C-alpha cells in the first residue's frame, strides 16, 4: 500500500466497519520507496477471508492484496518479555532462553528482559515456560510474513 497519511486508519476502519476480526497487524516499509507492506492476521472462513481481501482491494491506497494462508511462507513475530528473576532462578531462565535461541537484552536487579523472534507458536511456548517465574511486562509485535522462494 501507498505510504501516505491515514492509510492505516483506512484499513483499521474497514475492519471495524464490516465486523472483520484482526488478530494481529504489522506495518512497515517495503522494498520499494513510497510503499508499505502490511501483514494482517485475520480469523474467518474462506468466504470471510475472500470478502476481506476484496474489500481491502477497493481501498484506493492499497496496491495489492494477497491471501497467503495456504502458501509456503516465512512468518515471524517479535516479543519482549520482562520476567522476574532472582539469583536462584536467573540461570534456569537463561537456559530456557538459550534453548529457544532467544536473547537476554536487559538485566535488572530483579528481572531479565528477553527478546524472542519466531513464529507465533515459538513465542507462545517461550512465554508459557517463562510464565511460572512471573511475567512483569510483555510487548509483542504482530506477525510479518513473506512467501518463500523467488516469486512473490
Amino acid at each position, binding site marked *: 500500500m*501507498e505510504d501516505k497519511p491515514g492509510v492505516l*486508519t483506512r484499513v483499521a476502519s474497514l475492519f471495524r466497519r464490516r465486523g472483520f476480526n484482526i488478530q494481529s497487524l504489522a506495518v512497515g516499509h517495503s522494498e520499494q520507496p513510497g510503499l508499505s507492506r502490511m501483514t494482517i492476521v485475520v480469523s474467518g472462513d474462506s*468466504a470471510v477471508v*475472500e*470478502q476481506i481481501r*476484496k474489500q481491502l482491494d*477497493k481501498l*484506493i491506497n492499497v*496496491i495489492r492484496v494477497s491471501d497467503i494462508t495456504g502458501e509456503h511462507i516465512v512468518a515471524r513475530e517479535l516479543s519482549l518479555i520482562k520476567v522476574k528473576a532472582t539469583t536462584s532462578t536467573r540461570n534456569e531462565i537463561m537456559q530456557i532462553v538459550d534453548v529457544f535461541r532467544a536473547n537476554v537484552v536487559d538485566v535488572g536487579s530483579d528481572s531479565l528482559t528477553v527478546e524472542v523472534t519466531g513464529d507465533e507458536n515459538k513465542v507462545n511456548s517461550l512465554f508459557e515456560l517463562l510464565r511460572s517465574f512471573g511475567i512483569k511486562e510483555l510487548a509483542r509485535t504482530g506477525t510479518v510474513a513473506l512467501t518463500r522462494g523467488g516469486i512473490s
Partner: protein
Amino acid sequence: MKKTGAQILCESLVTEGVEVIFGILGGAILPIYDAFSQYPQIRRILVRHEQAAAHAADAYARVTHRVGVCVATSGPGATNLVTGIANAYMDSSAMVAITGQVARPFIGKDAFQETDITGITLPITKHNYSVSDAAELAKIVKEAFHIASTRRPGPVLIDIPRDVQQEEVEFVYPEKIDLPGYKLVSRGHSVQIRKAARLINEAERPVIIAGRGVIISQAYAELQELAEKAQIPVVNTLLGIGSFPGQHKLYFGMMGMHGMACANMAVQHADLILAIGMRFDDRATGNTKGFAPHAQIVHIDIDPAEIGKNIPVDVPIVGDVKSVVKAINREVKHGQHLDWLLQLGEWKQEHPSLEARKDGALLPQYVIRHIFEATQGDATVVTGIGQNQMWAAQHFVYTRPNSLVSSGGLGTMGFELPAAIGAKVGRSEDVVWCIAGDGGLQMTIHELATITQENLAIKIAVINNGFLGMVRQWQELFYGRRYVDTKLWNPDFTKIAEAYSIPGIRVNRTEDIAPAIEKAMDYPGAFLIDFVVEPEENVYPMVPPGKSLSQTLQMPKREVASSCSRRRH
C-alpha cells in the same frame, strides 16, 4: 501561471466539465466562493442546508451520468453533508464533495468550526482527500473526478484548508492519472461469459434481475436484446427500475419486500437467475436462506466485493454490465420459454398486486396512477422514503430509461425535495414530479426556497397521510397496532408553499386528483398538491421482515376501511 488554490479548484472544475455546483457557503470556504465570481460558467445553486446540496448533487449525477458536485464550509457545513454523502455511497452515485477546512496552522487545535471531516467520512466515501499543499490540488481534483465516476461510482470528498485556498502556486492541470491501486476493469472473463451463455441456453425457467448497475452502465439496449433474444422475463430491484421498459411484455415488475407477487414467485421458482448490476440487498432478497432455492445464479457486477457477499454465486462475472451483457448476447441462442412465461402470466392474473379498493376513499395508489396517466411516463419521478416511495415504485409505469430517482440503500427521509432540485437542474426540459411523504417533506422543506430562487418548475405531490406511514404500517402489523410517535400534526402544506411563492392546492376527494394534476402540469412553475390520503392505507404486497420471498403477503381481500376518521384541518 500562478493562481490561488481557490482559482485552481475552479479551473480544475471547469476542465472536468462541471457546469453546476450545489452548495452553501461559510467562513472556511469563502475564498473559493469569491473565486466563483470569476467563473460564471459554473452555475451555483444556493441551497438552504448542506444535506440538500449533497442530495441534489447525487440526483443530478443520477439523471445526467455526470459527476454531481456539492460544496460546503468547514465544521457544521461539512457534517451536514454527511447524510447526503452516505446516501450517494450506498446508491453508487458519482459525486465530488468539496469542503472548506480551517487554515493549516489551526488544524488539530479544535479551532472555530473545525471538524475532522475526512475522518468522519472515511467509511462513507469511495475515497477522500485532505489537501495540505495548493500545488497538489489540481492533481487531487483530477483523481477525485476519475475515482467518483469510474468503476462502481461513489462519492469522493476533498477537504481544503482556507489558507490552501489562498496560497498562490503555479497551475498546471495534470494530463495523466497515476493511481497504481485503482485499475479499471471493464470486460468480463470470457470463460465465465461462455459459461453464463450456456446456462442461459439450457435454462427452462430463467429470470433476469436488473439493478441500478444497468442504468449506471447505460446498458438498456443490451439488456433488452438479451431478454428478447432468449425470451427471459425481467424483474427489477428498486433502483433497477428504469433499466427495462415498464410496459414491455417480458417485464414483471419490482421484486423484494414490496415487490410484485409474480416477480417474487418468478425468482423463487426460477432455475436460473441472471443478476445484473445489483447487490442482493436484503430488501430485495428477503431472507437469503430461502432465496431462489432452485436457481443457479449468474452474477454480473463491476464490484468484485459484491459477488458472493450476500448470496453464494455459481458464475461470477466481474465487469462493466454493458460490455459483459453485449458479450453474452453474442453467445446466447434465440430461446422460447413459452411455458414459463405463460406461468408467470398466470401468476400475474392470480395475484393482481396492484389492485386497490374502489370505495371512494382517496388512496395514494390512485394519486400515483393519475400522475402516470397525465405524463404517460414522460417524466422524471423523484420519491421520498417509505410508503410514498413504494407506491411510486409500484404504480407508475417507468417507460423511459432512468426515470426514477429514489434513495434505495440508505433510505433517507428528506431526500425527495433536494433530489428533485438536482434532477430538475440536470434535466431542465423534463417534467419532474417529486413524490413526497408528509414526514420526509418536513425534513428538508426549506428547499422550497431554493426552488423558488432558482425558478425550478418542480411538481410536488405530497402523499399526506398524517403518519410516518411505513413505520406505522410496521407498528400495525408487527407491534400490536401501538402507534408510538408515528402520528404527525402537520401544517397546511399549501400555505407553506404559498409563503415560498409556490402555488398549492389541497385534494381531499378521489375525483379531484386528475384535475389537480392537470392544473399542476399546466402551471409554468413549481406547484404543490397536498393529497390528503387515507391515513392507514398499507403497502402491499409485503414480505414480512425475516421471511423469504415465498412468503409474500397480498393485500387482505377485504381490507376493512380504517376506523380512524380522515383528518381534516
